[in-house]
């Protein structure tokens, strides 16, 4: 998780560790909701790839 890009990491932590919704994350980080979803997808994909290595 430490190897994730900062933006993706922040969203991943808030969504998948802390349990916040995209709407809340968008408000917290000043992002569009779509950006939050995209960042989460990016983070999860990178972690999936790391898991397969």
């Amino acid at each position, binding site marked *: 998780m430490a190897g994730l890009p900062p933006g993706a990491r922040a969203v991943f932590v808030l969504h998948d560790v802390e349990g916040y919704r995209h709407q809340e994350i968008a*408000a917290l980080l000043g992002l569009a909701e779509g950006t939050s979803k995209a960042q989460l997808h990016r983070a999860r994909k990178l972690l999936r790839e790391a898991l397969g290595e």
Partner: protein
Amino acid sequence: MTCAEAEDRLDDYVDGSLPEAEFQEMELHLAGCPPCREQERRLRAVLAQATALPKALSPARDLWPGIAGRIEGQRRAPLRGWLPISLAAAAAVAIALGSTLLPRPGPPAVPPPPPGLSVAVSPGSDALPEVEADYARATTALLAALSERPSSFSSETLASVQKNLEVIDEALAEVREALRKDPNNGELTHMLVATHRKKLDVLRRVVKLSTQL
């Protein structure tokens, strides 16, 4: 459904937020596609590990209410004892820690940051170092105010605060590093400034808590 489409929908599928029709399509695809099933398995494993992590990054839910509850006139380790550490660690309040995650402050117990600190900074702006310096000065002022308070927190509370501040500091360093590589990234610039602002928020609240001891 193609594998690319399945990849696009995998998050929503695992989160249970796919519409029924797409859910059924996804089930069909997964049933006949071992590589996509493997991706699903990995994602579920990632989420299982994420869920198992301690929620140490969310003070509003775990740390801060606990702090408030434990601070009941205890006077153990002097607050000023952790100031040198917090000076370094308090470089930021995490990207992941929005001010709304923290208890709402009452009337300000200490002076608010200089008005200029709320000014937005354009990506790649030369003003960013200056804004960072302003935040650093405001932080120093708050820590100085903190050191003058005669109150104290328990060692357990101090450890929790310190740990979180260290995580936050690390997050800020990462944003700075990312900005160094991509100075015109507006999102990162926003994160950096917002992080500084929230750091001050937290410090103000710590000062406020210290006055209640």
